[in-house]
């Protein structure tokens, strides 16, 4: 009754997450260590399958606290995909962060997240709240 897309072992089936088409990919590990990849409709699908087996990565999107902003939270993301295994630790790191408004889209919120060499950047502008009274 449940869906389990992960087949353990050398042969793996997976859904490509690169675009909304969601191609069903299959990766077979050859004896010589070469990967045989089928089911993709574009180059990026093939690359996704290879990375998914060798070093799966995801873009992390979350929020951080903002001081003096018009809203209490700022949406942020990693500038590039980070290793999947680092998602939880990245969330812990960002949970402690509090930044000052104003912020502009693309501003670096945290440089070199967990020594990945990848920055965490702002996903939107956040104006400073105007002091009333």
């Amino acid at each position, binding site marked *: 009754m449940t*869906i389990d897309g992960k087949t353990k072992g050398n042969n793996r089936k997976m859904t490509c997450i690169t675009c909304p088409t*969601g191609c069903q990919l299959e990766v077979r590990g050859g004896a010589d260590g070469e990967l045989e990849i089928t089911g993709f409709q574009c180059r990026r699908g093939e690359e996704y399958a290879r990375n998914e087996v060798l070093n799966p990565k995801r873009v992390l999107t979350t929020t951080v606290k903002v001081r003096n902003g018009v*809203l209490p939270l700022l949406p942020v993301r990693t500038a590039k995909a980070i290793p999947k295994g680092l998602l939880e630790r990245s969330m812990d790191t960002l949970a402690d962060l509090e930044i000052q408004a104003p912020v502009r889209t693309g501003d670096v919120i945290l440089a070199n997240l967990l020594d990945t060499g990848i920055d965490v950047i702002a996903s*939107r502008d956040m104006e400073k709240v105007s002091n009333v009274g």
Partner: protein
Amino acid sequence: MTKTRQTDVAIIGGGPAGLAAAIAARKAGAKHVTILERSHELGGILQQCIHNGFGLHRFQEELTGPEYAYRFIPEVQKDPGIELYLNTMVLDLSSQQEITAIHPDFGLVKLQARATVLAMGCRERTRGALSIPGTRPAGVFTAGTAQRFVNIDGYMPGKKVVILGSGDIGLIMARRFTLEGAKVEAVVEIMPYPAGLARNIAQCLEDFDIPLYLSSTVTTIHGKDRVEGVTISQVDDKWQPIPGTGRYISCDTLLLSVGLIPENELSQAANIPLDAKTGGAIVDENRETLIPGIFACGNVLHVHDLVDYVSEEAEIAGEAATRYALSKADADAKANERDKGRKAQQVVIKPGENVRYVLPQRLTPGAEADLFLRVTQPMEAITLYLDGVMLARKRQVRPSEMLKIRLRPNHWENLRQNRGDLDGKEISLTAALQPTQPTRLEPETVRGARP
């Protein structure tokens, strides 16, 4: 007495549809465009969709919701020809395009538009629409409401979560809750296949080992003051719970991701005829409703799965609304006659076999336009026919993925050969199951074929 303001093109809603419509209207030559937006800022629902995956078609980039919105917002803000009414709730729209709204500074506002673009978006289906048995405790939220609490307001609605419905927002929230430290116990879907995109099943559920129960539903909500658990049961092929299959899952929160409903109260106030299948207005290739001069685009017209197509549709509507507004500059009886003739000439397209809906529902004969459609159930391979004329073949189609087909001059030629004069006729779009051709297919596909 409130003075009535004038505008070339009024746009109701400042989300992705309204933003793209406004920019397109200005490019098409509208001198004065007015956006009426009920929130304190532009961007609509994109502002709370902080995940990435937007804009791949349009910008060849994976943007977050706010980033996608910011591709449009600055252009709208700095354009002196676009007047922005934020924190403004539109209360009424008449078929003569008089708009009544409440503005925090101006009070009651009356706006007379030459053309109007409806871009109000949609809202979520709630528990009341589902009739789930059980108690009435706190802790039952629609997925989008939970998304707003978590991403904008900074509150976690609960720690142990069950999600009913496998729509994209529910899947996105399963991942979001997990990342924020909550435990998502299950996603429960009444249909035998997921409602959301395959990529979201992969990156939101499989990545975090969240189980998805298909052909199942929540049959009881437990708890007095707060949700304490839910009972989920399997359903038969008529979606009825199968006795004896009930299973209790302890949780403090139930999220509902069970569908979106275009928000058309204003359209109804203006007597705009709606399509029962899409929940939005009946429109032609210009996204003009059956009331001349009133156009619709985005999720108020039909629920899209990709914002890229919302922007595209809004540009069609914004541009056409401007053409209408400028041609109506000398509004007179002749223009009304022209409108009537134009509408009478259009071909009506009905969804046929295996097709849930098709949009636009009306076409001017000869129009080169994209048809958007959804199928009724997942199918391996289909051939799409418009009144017997073959349009396209598609593989691996699902109701959750909107299909897009370009209608070309040769299609119209073939239609005319079959039917002669098309003016005012009704034709249907059908999806015929394609017979598999074993010689041309990969071995795996043949295995799946029926004998």
